[in-house]
């Protein structure tokens, strides 16, 4: 399998994307912004379609579009007193508007249907050397952005009002994070396609949160799980000839379900041991 260059590229691409999706997704899930991840990757699809029509590389269009949308979503008013904001309305409308644009871009670009398929479902086996370098650049930018933002972001996600009272620039942290998310979603879409880009951003971190892990352990576990999912998807698709996103999507849901079962089992066994001790 590894004797083919396209497979080596695919594995490298998946590794880069997992390193981005694990940490960024963990913060997204912590802040309950799964819908934003979903929306941003679809918005990226419109950007990619626009770029193809205008003759730019799709990744550039993806990044430009989702960055703009991310800033639009992030700049919405914080609810008073740090309450979780009902952002869903804004996100949904930004998504609708950009998908509308996307269909028009596809209409204008020729050979629309095959292009749409590639963008929607991704083409991990077609990752070239240039794409790999772009992914590397995106990973570096995302992770350094997250590194700079992580403390105010974590504080304002865990205790928004206390963070504000301590002078944390909650708004700037939220905006910066949305920009990082937009970049991350574009990178994920490159591998898993716009339709499933968010599966890597949501499945592993949701699993880590379900296991009640703290930030450091949570980010580490979700990165490792993302790697496991994407490489596992590659290997399975090599063996079965089914598309990679199938395995990534199914695997994400299975991981989450498995984590739930495990937590239940753990609680059950704690309860039984303590009741045996009590007897």
């Amino acid at each position, binding site marked *: 399998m590894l004797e083919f260059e396209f497979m080596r590229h695919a594995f490298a691409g998946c590794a880069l994307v997992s390193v981005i999706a694990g940490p960024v997704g963990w913060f997204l899930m912590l802040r309950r912004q799964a819908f934003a991840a979903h929306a941003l990757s679809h918005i990226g699809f419109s950007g990619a379609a626009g770029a193809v029509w205008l003759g730019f590389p799709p990744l550039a269009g993806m990044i430009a579009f989702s960055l703009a949308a991310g800033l639009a979503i992030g700049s919405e008013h914080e609810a008073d007193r740090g309450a979780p904001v009902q952002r869903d309305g804004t996100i949904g409308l930004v998504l609708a508007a950009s998908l509308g644009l996307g269909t028009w871009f596809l209409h204008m670009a020729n050979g629309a249907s095959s292009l749409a398929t590639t963008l929607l479902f991704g083409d991990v086996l077609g990752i070239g050397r240039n794409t790999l370098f772009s992914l590397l650049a995106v990973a570096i930018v995302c992770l350094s952005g997250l590194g700079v933002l992580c403390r105010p972001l974590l504080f304002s996600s865990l*205790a928004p009002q206390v963070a504000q009272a301590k002078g944390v620039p909650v708004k700037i942290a939220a905006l910066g994070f949305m920009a990082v998310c937009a970049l991350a979603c574009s990178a994920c879409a490159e591998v898993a396609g716009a339709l499933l880009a968010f599966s890597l951003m949501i499945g592993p971190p949701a699993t880590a949160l379900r296991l009640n892990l*703290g930030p450091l352990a949570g980010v580490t576990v979700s990165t490792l799980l993302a790697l496991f999912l994407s490489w596992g998807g590659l290997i399975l698709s090599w063996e079965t000839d089914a598309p990679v996103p199938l395995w990534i999507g199914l695997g994400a849901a299975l991981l989450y379900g498995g984590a739930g079962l495990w937590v239940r089992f753990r609680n059950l066994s704690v309860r039984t041991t303590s009741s045996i001790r009590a007897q």
Partner: protein
Amino acid sequence: MHLRTDLRLENVTLSAGSSVVLKGVSLQTSLAGITLLSGRNGTGKTTLLRALLGLDKPSHGSIFLRNAVPEDIRKDVGYMPQSIGDAALAIPAFSHVLNAVGGACWGLPFHWRARRREAERVLKLTGARVFAHRPLGALSGGERQRIGLAQALIGAPELLFLDEPLAGLDHGAQNEIISLLCELSRNLGIGVLMTSHETSSLKDVVSRTLLLEGGHLRARI
């Protein structure tokens, strides 16, 4: 103990949305010991506390805490909001406290040891160490109050603003929190300003009461 002016309001008008909380109020008071901010639901206690933290701005007049504007003495004030929120319930309570230590700084969190020590210290002060490893969502209301209190105590503040720290607690738990607050103010010299409707449980321990009513704020010793 000498009584200094901790809180000075100069002709302050403060509103939240369409309701007026303070109408041109001027007041000077010490906050030594425990100060109770009392008033009926919706009179604006939370809004006033937020204004003292510099989070809500008065439309008129000025607020001084220890002769400084609220924004300038943030690090000396600990705050526990009315609801500690339903954010991130899956994360262990210990992380909630740990990540509030130095949480306002940019960049990666170094100084692991010092941050851990500070988190352990405040958790010990509030008696929350035994359950801090559990996820926040798996804690009872009283246990969560202690976590919130621990967060407020980070960085050894001189003033503590607590919004309804006794809400939802049974009598036993209320008395535990009250004696904890007495200890903090006695041993560490922290000035506690708290809102509460439990005036009867508090009447023996408060040094003064600020009554908020119809846009006026009156101090009673």
